[in-house]
């Protein structure tokens, strides 16, 4: 089973839930940090990184000797990543989406695709956890190809927990897509609620079952609970504000280590998710 952990709003506790859940399971589990712009899970897990792989995308390289400056490449490119100026062709690799269109339409076969590194995948282990994270190189714009690349390493023989990026646009969609369940983490504040609504609509479009963790559940107001009720999103866990949790988070310590009574709650959370996913599969069949 693949569970992605998402939120809409940033800073609600996605990484806290992902890391504490993975630790609490105490069995083989794959923890995958797909928040490639700002990966943080490693700051709590301290994995021993066994290898790091560079991830590249393909971008065009133009052979000016073959080019007849017909501008077909420029016409097909929707991202302004290739421009013909008099007798020169400029490419803008940061804008390129690697669709391969320019290469295919070039009548002179003057375009080759070359690899350009956009980030790294770190792979390692910690206790029972198989750890992976994606790290987007600074200055790179495109997170989704790296997220998709991290996800090619998903293992089928153990539970997979994916820490997704915040927001509701392409990077989050790339992280949540093809997962069995989305666990949403929010806080009961107006910002938390507003961004939760956006996240729930995104998940509806993807047609993935979801549930909610309310973090710092005793701050703010009750509107998040009312919204969850109204939308039929089950509240699977509530974590009250606790200075010890905040202190653990600040220094990079998973709070279940300091407060082991929470481990069984996380195990139960996982079981609840499993029941929901299995129930849905049965209903589908």
């Amino acid at each position: 089973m693949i569970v992605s952990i998402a939120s809409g709003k940033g800073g609600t506790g996605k990484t806290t839930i992902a890391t504490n859940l993975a630790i609490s399971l105490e069995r083989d589990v794959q923890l995958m940090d797909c928040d490639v712009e700002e990966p943080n899970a490693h700051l709590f897990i301290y994995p021993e990184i066994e290898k790091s792989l560079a991830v590249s995308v393909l971008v065009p390289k133009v052979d000016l000797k073959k080019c007849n400056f017909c501008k077909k490449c420029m016409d097909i490119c929707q991202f302004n990543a290739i421009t013909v100026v008099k007798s020169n062709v400029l490419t803008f690799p940061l804008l390129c989406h690697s669709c391969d269109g320019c290469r295919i339409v070039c009548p002179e076969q003057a375009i080759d695709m070359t690899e350009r590194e956009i980030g790294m995948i770190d792979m390692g282990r910690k206790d029972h956890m198989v750890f992976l994270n994606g790290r987007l190189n600074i200055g790179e714009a495109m997170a989704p190809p790296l997220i998709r690349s991290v996800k090619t390493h998903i293992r089928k023989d153990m539970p997979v927990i994916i820490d997704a990026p915040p927001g509701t646009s392409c990077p989050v969609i790339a992280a949540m897509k093809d997962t069995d369940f989305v666990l949403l983490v929010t806080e009961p504040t107006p910002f938390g609620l507003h961004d939760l609504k956006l996240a729930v609509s995104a998940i509806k479009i993807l047609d993935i079952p979801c549930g909610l963790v309310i973090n710092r559940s005793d701050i703010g107001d009750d509107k998040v609970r009312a919204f969850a009720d109204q939308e039929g999103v089950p509240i699977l866990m509530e974590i009250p504000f606790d200075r010890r949790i905040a202190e653990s988070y600040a220094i990079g310590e998973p709070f279940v280590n300091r407060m082991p009574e929470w481990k069984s709650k996380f195990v139960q959370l996982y079981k609840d998710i499993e029941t929901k996913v299995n129930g849905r599969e049965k209903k589908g069949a």
Partner: protein
Amino acid sequence: MVKELVVISGKGGTGKTTLMAALSALSNDKIMCDADVDAADLHLIMNPAIISTHDFQGGRIAVSKKELCTECGYCRELCKWHAIRDDFTIDEIACEGCGVCAYLCPEKAIDFPLKTCGQWFESDTRFGPMIHASLGVAEENSGKLVAQVRKEAKRIAEVKGFDLIITDGPPGVGCPVIASMSGATAILIVSEPTVSGIHDMGRVLELCRHFQIPAMVCINKFDLNETMSSKIEEKAKVMNAPVVGKIPFDSDFTKAMVKGQTLFEYNQASKTSRGIEMLWQHIRERLETSRGKQNIIFKEIIK
């Protein structure tokens, strides 16, 4: 010359929008711009009265025309996003909008219309004009929409003779963040004293350096962990970014947010409010110095 201060954080939830709203209450003759189009929250405090709404067409999308399709399968071979299903309909979520299928379909059986993927708004608030947007859920092109709202904010600032834009930026370091900082006068990074806060501040500081934009740092909730706060100060120093303010943890922020207020409206007399006034003074000073230089250049140009 219009100055633009862009507030970012790398990590989400450090208090970027809340602080930006508070800063907005302290300044006149400015425009607010919410460039966190993916999960825009500033309007929840500013309660804007929308003056005009504009569709945002950030790109195109492939739409198959069943009646012309011969199911030759060439489009499926071409599509890098696996967006063309077995029945030759198109998965809108997976479609990247590259147009390769539409361009190369031998039967011209794929349309490629412009797609409305969000809206942007020009509004009035109790603290002055505001430009904001909402990107459709699960849409692409947030970077383009960010560029659009910033362009509009600049235009209106020029028309109304305002000298400052305060922009609420998105989290992360990728496409929308890069779009929110290019050409800015200065960046304010809101960090928090946690391992994640420090790590992510480091990455956005590198990004500022990469694009050569002056950055300054504000430590929010600094008293939650003073050891970590010192580490932030050290790291900021190493990376040549001045720490322009340290704001304490204060549950008034959440209480004000629940009421749809800035901190100053909720509790003007508090120590935190004083801290934010100091922060704003330091930011202003830094913006002034850069204005001085650019004003000279600007005067040269208008001569």
